[in-house]
């Protein structure tokens, strides 16, 4: 594949798009579980550093980016509560204060609990 070629190009109007999309979502969830677990681990490390006053700027920025992605992705898989929690974590990491950073540990714990049965 050359740089100028699209990596994907099709045209298939489905007779049952809902079923096809549900099947893809189930498959994607399984395929991306390792990435999701890594992201949850990273958010928990970020929360730990925040709680101990040792949060590095690079970790904060990476945590914010990961939380942003999760806030957009989890709802697509019908994990709306988890997506909202990720959005709250993103907001805290975007404009952190000493007070709000202390909330991260609880939020990340609740986020993992919300997904526990699906990990």
């Amino acid at each position, binding site marked *: 594949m050359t*740089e*100028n*070629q*699209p*990596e*994907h*190009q*099709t*045209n*298939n*109007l*489905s007779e049952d*798009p*809902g079923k*096809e*999309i549900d099947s*893809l*979502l189930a498959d*994607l969830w399984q*395929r*991306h579980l390792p990435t999701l677990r890594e992201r949850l681990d990273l958010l928990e490390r970020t929360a730990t550093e925040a709680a101990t006053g040792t949060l590095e700027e690079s970790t904060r920025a990476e945590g914010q*980016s990961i939380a*942003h*992605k999760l*806030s*957009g*992705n*989890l*709802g*697509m898989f019908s994990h*709306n509560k988890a*997506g909202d929690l990720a*959005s709250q974590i*993103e*907001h805290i990491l975007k404009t952190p204060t000493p007070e709000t950073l202390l909330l991260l540990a609880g939020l990340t714990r609740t986020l993992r609990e919300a997904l526990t049965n699906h990990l």
Partner: protein
Amino acid sequence: MRRILIIDDEDDIREVAALSLEATAGWEILTANSGAKGIEVAVAQQPDAILMDVMMPEVDGPTTFRHMQQNPAIANIPVLLLTAKVQGVDQRRFAGLGVAAVLFKPFDPLTLADQISEVLGWSKNDHSNQPSSEPTD
């Protein structure tokens, strides 16, 4: 048939959006996993519209959009930014870029094509791969 370019660094978002638009609207889908690759595909393939993520590594969506605007070959292609829910100040910033619309994740795969069609003023006939049956007088 409409041709849409999806630019997103997240594999799962690209796959779901692509299948969604193929399965529900029958559109031809092109994808790229970065802004730079997206520009190359856009220049070569001339899509009817571009659906692009905001937060991407290296070059983000708004910066990629500005590069597109400076390229006469693709400057007129409507761009829709796709982002997780953001605060009002960011929404206004994205809207102020001059993009056709800002759509939010999580999106409903069954209605994404409708959202895009509505924003771009595309008719229902653009939603299928059947020939248009509009009278021509």
